[in-house]
Structure formats: C-alpha cells, structure tokens
C-alpha cells in the first residue's frame, strides 16, 4: 500500500496530518471513521475491489433537517406502504465496483434497510426500508457518514417519476426478429436454382417474408418516418428523409414485386437496414445517456429552509416561503430568497451570482439577495418576496439560457443531407427519364432501385458512431461534454476566452511559506499589526495567514502604493513590501513575494505559492499558434504583469469584468464572426459560458458543475486542453473521410441501379457491408487519433 496516499480516499496525505489506524494511513478523521465503520461491520472487502475508492464524508450538521418534514419525504419516496418504503437516491460519488458493493450491502450497516440496489449508469441507489425502524433522514445521514452523500434537490422534489423509455430496445428486438427470420427464409431465393421444389413453394416463402417484414417496416422503422415528416414540415432536409424514403420505396417496390411475381423483393435488405440503423441509434443513446446533463439551475437551490415560528424552528419546503417569514440560514447555506438581515453582521459570498468578489459584509438591517452563500455563523432573515420572484430566478431565466436550446447548429450530417436528397432525387428522375424510352418496366425498376441503394444508412451512422466514440474517449480523459454537437463546435473554435480566477488559477487557497531568518511570535505580532492597516490583496492574504496574535498600535503608518508599508511598533521600525522597498536585490525568480525588514535588518520573505495551474505557459504557448487567446477577469489589474510574463505575446488581458460584461464581451466577439470557446469555472461566469459557442467549465470536483456549460473539464486535465481541441478537429476529419467512403459505396450501388442491374442479392450484400465497414472504419480512426499526442 502506498503510504503517501489515504487508504480510504486516495488523497495525498500531508505528513503532519497523517492518522494511522489499524496499520493504515488516513488523510483525515473523516476517512478514518468511515474505515472504522466498515471494519466494525466486516465490510472491509470494500477496499479489495478498487484501490482507495472512498470519499471523505462531509459535515452534515443540520443539513438534512428538512427530511423531518413529512411532505418532503413523501415526495422522495417511490413507493409507500405500511412497513415498506422505497426511495431512489442520486449519489454522485458512485464510480466503481466498490461503490456498488458497499451500497448493496447497506442492510449490514443498518437493520431497517431490507435491501438496496444500485443502478450504476444513473448513479442511483434504490433503497427498500422499513419506516418503523429507520427514517429516510437516518438513511441519508448514514450514507453521508460513509462518504456517499446523496444529492437531494428541487429536481427530485419537482419531477413526477419519469417512465423509462424502452421503446428503442423493443424496436430493436422486433427488428432483429424480422431480420433473422427473413434472412433464413430468403436463402432459397439467393441460390436461384430453377428446380421444381423451389418453384412449388416460392409463393409461400415470399408471402411469409412479406408478413415478417411488416412489424419491422411498420413498428421498428417508425421513428424514421416521424423524424422525416417533422423535418419536412420544419423545411429542413435532414438525413432521415432519404432513409425514410428508401425504406418506404423499398417496401412498395418489394410488395409490387411479389404481388406480380417479378421477383423476391428487397425485404431482406429492408429489415437488415432497419436493424443496423437501430443498433447504431442504441449505441448512440447509451453513450450519450451516460454523460447526462439533466440537472438544471434549480438543482442549486436548497430544497428546504428553516423557518422560525416564535421559538420553534421548522424545516419547510422552499416553495412555501412567503414574504414576511423569518428564516434561519446556517453557515455555507444558500440564501433562497431576497430578504433583510435580522441578526448580527455576517459576510455573504455572492460569487455564485455576481462574480469573483470577496465575501461582502452585511450589517443587521441590510438587504440580502438570493443566491448568496452565507459565510458567517447562523443568521436570521426576514423574507421580502417569495421564491419565484427573486433576483436569482430572474438572472437564471435570462434569455441567454433559453436561447441556447433553440439555437440551431448545422451539423455536418445536416449539411450533407441538405444536398444529398435533391441530388438523389435528381439521379433517380434522370435515369427514369432515360430508361422510359428504352423500356418502361425497367424504368420503374431503375427509379426505385436508385432510391433503395442510395439509402444513406452508412452516412447516417458514421457521424453518431464517431462522435459517440469520441465522447467516450474524452470522458475517459476527464472532459465531459454535454452532447455530440459540442465536438463539432469545438473543432470550429478560433478564439478562446479564459476566465482567470478558478480557471487558470487553482481554487485552493494558495500556500504561503516563510523563507528567511527565524522570527519569533513577538515579531510575528508586529507584522500582523502592521498588515492590518493595509488593504493590499497580498497584505490581506498574509494577514489572514498569520496566526492570531495580540495586535499592537502602529505609529507612523505609511503605505507607499506599489511598494509596501512601513510603521513603528513598540519602538521597532518595520517595513513590509517589495524587495527594493526593504533594500534587497529585486527578485529573480518568478514568484509573488513579500519581504520583511525589522529595524532595517532584512529578515526574510513570505513566498506566495504560485497559484497558476500546472502547464499554463506551455498550454498557452501551444494554443497561441492556432487560436486567439483572451483572458477575462473579474479581479483588478494586480496580476497583469505576472500574467504577461507567463503567457505568450498577443494574449489580450481584460480586467475588472462583471459577469454581464463578460457576457457582452463574448457577444461582441461573436458579432465579429468569431467562434468563441469560453473556459470558466462555472456559475459566476454562467452567462458568458452559455453565450459562447462552446462553454467549458473547469472543475476541481466533477460532481459540481454549471448547467450553462457545454462541457466539464477536470481541473487536473487543464493542460491537455490543446490536445482535446486537436482531437476534436481530427474527429471532424474522420467523419469527413467516412462520408467520402460511404459516398463511394453509394456510387458503386448507384452504378448497378442506374444500369438496371440491381439484384436483390447485390443489395443484400452491398448495404450491410457498407454499414459495417464504415462503422469499423470510424471506430479505428477515432481510436488512432486519440493515441496521437
């Protein structure tokens, strides 16, 4: 076992915080406790399936009190009878076989649970429990204590149970049934030996095949007719039109063939086609579902709030809050509605809504707005408006988010199919007109044969297969995209806008290390006292970093902008500031330092750990070659020089941007005809992320994301951004190559059709063959490109 990583969660252990228990090392008490729970219950097998599978349990004090409210609990239950309740909880942490194992063994941790079942793809656990022995709240707390915190939000609260859509699987099953049987029954026709036996039963076989083709034609393929009809009505030519046309024509032609005994018809190709296309669709659906982005903004709202009735505190659903209510907001809870602060001063973090500002101090009687995160101790507030009217909802119902859904992207497939259908019809009509002078029956045959053989199933499959595969590959490398069109959009990007805080810098509070001669506590107190007077960001950070000390009065305090501060405390003359200010040689290393001198003696410096992400310079140097780079920041210009030295020339730096300004800036770029990719950290630039062509949010923890974005990139993979962009371009290249290939197949098929030589057997070979080669081609190519550096 690696001694430097936590046995439970796999985090690197800080030496001084290491906890050794049962000969294993843990990073914190939380992890140790979970291990203790498991080992007491004989569940340590948990650690055998996967190395360090756990998560550190989060503090849950009071957080789930709303589960005491019966109305809320009832909404969360799937099934309710005397002593059997069933609930489904969404647990974002579910990620490996260990998770499945522990969650399905919950009954060993808690006697009231009779069984539990995990759905891995939906990250849900379905728990059957006895309400007499255990309450939902206790279960949630249990899950929380073992690091599997369920995610309960308004979403769960709102939605009626969604019926699982299984129609595609039914269709696929029916299609395969028809296809398989028809293939077997068609064999006699393939070897067209003119013997008595075959002639005798020909009619029987053909009508049987006809009957078997009906379910496939009427039921399995119905999705294509609907889609084709919709797209015609919308005035767009999508790829489903030629497919639906091909299927319908194939069916009519084949029926006529057997009615008038012209031949065996194309029922085998028809059912084969339907089957293969549905198979492709299923693959697509499964891949896309796994990366589902169903959650919306409401997920960020608290589901219940604590209301104060006289001396009582009651948890009530957030929608029941009305103006005039008094609410209790605990530390780090979201403020659900606008209101007036009734208790002592507190600080509120509005980064969620407005930008990257520091927490704002609010005094008693101040107005506080929805969406802020309460940072101080418990507060009380008086509600001014009910939930739906509040500022946050307004911000979120901003048209930008709505626009996103309707914005029509012209995908590659759509573009091609726009030309495909007219060209196809043209070929069919032209060859019909030529043949009509030679032979009327052949002319009819040729006309239908063209429509049949050109049925662009390979064309329709190549894009979804490539994109689906690429989504999977990217997901494995920790870029999770909302859907496949994002890849096409990514390939088109020419301008990349980065947000600063949380995006190119890490969210973790940067470490401050002292480097120099020893300073004792008294001297430290001097430094802290002096820093207190300064409002410079570095002073503030250092002030907070230094341990609490007796603060002393400062005489002759002076702050020299851009240099440092000085003052006399208790007879000591202290200077804090840049190297030149304290009389040292300027820094040579690219670091943020604060130097200290006491009585003109240089003591040492506080080094602010570089807070920029690893590989930032390399990434920008790499991207700078192909893209226009911009940095938008909500902060002041303090970091301009550092950034300029880190980033390639020509990177535009824009500071002091409010969220609306960021949004406007992106819009401005788009008006200049640029395809903008916005890389941000989530909600505080939500507007800009939604407005951009591709909005990627960088996340230290993938389970926390902004619904406005098109993709989430795990922070550790930030330096690979260039690779992802290159990969997306190669993906489009792959799709184009496969289009060419499938068009080649079509030309071969058409050459048979136009000359009037299309035999059912030829169609039965050429059509599945093209589909299979195309699918394997795109899979191989995208895997190959993924391996390129």
């Amino acid at each position, binding site marked *: 076992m690696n001694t430097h990583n936590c046995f439970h969660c796999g985090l690197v252990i800080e030496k001084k915080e290491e906890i050794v228990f049962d000969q294993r090392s843990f990073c914190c008490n939380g992890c140790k406790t979970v291990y203790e729970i498991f080992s007491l219950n004989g569940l340590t097998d948990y650690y055998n399936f996967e190395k360090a599978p756990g998560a550190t349990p989060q503090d849950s004090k009071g957080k789930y009190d709303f589960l005491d409210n019966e109305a809320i609990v009832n909404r969360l239950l799937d099934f309710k009878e005397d002593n059997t309740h069933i609930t489904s909880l969404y647990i974002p942490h579910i990620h490996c076989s260990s998770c499945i194992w522990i969650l399905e063994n919950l009954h060993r941790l808690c006697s009231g649970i009779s069984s539990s079942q*995990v*759905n891995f793809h939906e990250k849900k656990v379905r728990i059957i429990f006895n309400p007499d022995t255990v309450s939902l709240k206790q279960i949630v707390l249990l899950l929380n204590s073992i690091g599997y915190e369920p995610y309960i939000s308004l979403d769960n609260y709102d939605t009626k149970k969604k019926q699982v859509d299984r129609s595609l699987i039914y269709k696929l*099953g029916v299609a395969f049934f028809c296809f398989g049987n028809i293939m077997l029954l068609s064999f006699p026709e393939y070897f067209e030996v003119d013997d008595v036996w075959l002639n005798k*039963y020909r009619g029987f076989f053909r009508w*049987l095949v006809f009957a078997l083709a009906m379910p496939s034609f009427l039921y399995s393929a119905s999705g294509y007719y609907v889609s084709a009809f919709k797209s015609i009505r919308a005035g767009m030519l999508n790829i489903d039109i030629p497919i639906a046309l091909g299927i319908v024509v194939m069916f009519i032609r084949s029926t006529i063939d057997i009615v008038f005994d012209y031949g065996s018809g194309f029922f085998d190709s028809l059912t084969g086609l339907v089957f293969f296309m549905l198979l492709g669709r299923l693959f697509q659906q499964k891949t896309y579902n796994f990366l589902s982005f169903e959650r919306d903004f409401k997920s960020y709202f608290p589901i219940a709030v604590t209301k104060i009735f006289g001396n009582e505190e009651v948890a009530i659903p957030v929608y029941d809050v009305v103006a005039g209510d008094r609410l209790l907001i605990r530390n780090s809870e979201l403020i659900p509605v606008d209101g007036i602060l009734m208790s002592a001063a507190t600080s509120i973090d509005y980064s969620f809504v407005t930008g990257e500002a520091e927490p704002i101090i609010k005094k008693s009687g101040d107005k506080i707005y929805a969406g802020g995160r309460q940072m101080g101790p418990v507060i009380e507030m008086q509600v001014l408006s009910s939930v739906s009217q509040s500022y946050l909802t307004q911000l979120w119902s901003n048209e930008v988010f709505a626009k996103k859904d309707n914005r029509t992207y012209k995908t590659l497939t759509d573009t091609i199919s726009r030309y495909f259908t007219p060209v196809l019809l043209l070929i069919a009509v032209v060859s019909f007109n030529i043949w009509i002078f030679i032979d009327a029956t052949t002319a009819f045959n040729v006309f239908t044969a063209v429509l049949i053989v050109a049925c662009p199933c390979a064309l329709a499959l190549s894009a979804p297969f490539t994109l689906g595969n690429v989504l999977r590959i990217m997901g494995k490398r920790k870029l999770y995209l909302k859907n496949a069109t994002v890849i096409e959009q990514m390939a088109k990007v020419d301008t990349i806008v980065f947000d600063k805080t949380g995006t190119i810098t890490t969210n973790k509070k940067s470490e401050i290390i002292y480097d120099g001669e020893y300073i004792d506590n008294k001297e430290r107190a001097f430094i802290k006292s002096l820093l207190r007077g300064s409002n410079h960001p570095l002073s503030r950070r250092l002030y907070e970093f230094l341990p609490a000390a007796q603060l002393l009065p400062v005489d002759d305090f002076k702050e020299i902008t851009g240099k440092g501060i000085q003052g006399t405390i208790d007879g000591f003359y202290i200077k804090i500031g840049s190297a030149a200010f304290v009389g040292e040689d300027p820094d040579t290393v690219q670091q943020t330092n604060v130097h200290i001198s006491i009585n003109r003696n240089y003591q040492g410096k506080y080094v602010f750990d570089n807070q920029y992400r690893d590989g930032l310079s390399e990434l920008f140097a790499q991207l700078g070659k192909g893209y226009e780079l911009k940095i938008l920041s909500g902060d002041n210009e303090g970091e301009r020089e550092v950034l300029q030295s880190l980033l390639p020339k020509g990177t535009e730096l824009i500071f002091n941007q409010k969220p609306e300004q960021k949004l406007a800036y992106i819009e401005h770029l788009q008006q200049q005809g640029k395809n903008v990719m916005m890389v941000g950290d989530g909600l505080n630039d939500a507007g800009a992320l939604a407005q951009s062509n591709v909005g990627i949010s960088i996340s230290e923890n993938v389970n926390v994301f902004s619904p406005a974005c098109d993709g989430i990139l795990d922070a550790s993979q930030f330096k690979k951004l260039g690779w992802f962009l290159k990969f997306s371009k190669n993906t489009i290249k792959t799709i184009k190559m496969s289009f060419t290939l499938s068009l080649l197949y079509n030309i071969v098929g058409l050459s048979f059709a136009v000359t009037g030589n299309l035999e059912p057997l030829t169609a039965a070979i050429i059509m599945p063959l093209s589909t299979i080669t195309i699918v394997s081609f795109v899979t191989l190519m995208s895997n190959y490109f993924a391996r390129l550096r």
Partner: protein
Amino acid sequence: MSVIYLLITISIIVALLFLYAFIKAVRQGQFDDYYTPSVRMLFDDETKQNDNKTNKD
C-alpha cells in the same frame, strides 16, 4: 399437406416465443442497466467468504 408448412410454422412459433421472452425481459427492466448486475454477480461469493472469515475470527 407438405411437411415444409408444418416445419416452418413450428420454427416461426419458436422464434415468436423467443421474441416474447425478450420483450418480457425488457419489460422487467433487465436491459435498463447492463453494468451493475455484471459486477453484482461477482460479489455474492466474496460476501459469503467474508462471512466465513468473520465467523472464524
């Protein structure tokens, strides 16, 4: 009546039975989650072993 009619009828009936079985399986939700059951199948043995172990201890 020729035996071929009989044979083909039987074969179609068998195929229909399988189709029915498939649809029934889908309806029961057997196709909703492909991953978890495959892992779960491996667990049972482990749990039993574990029980034995704890008994011995």
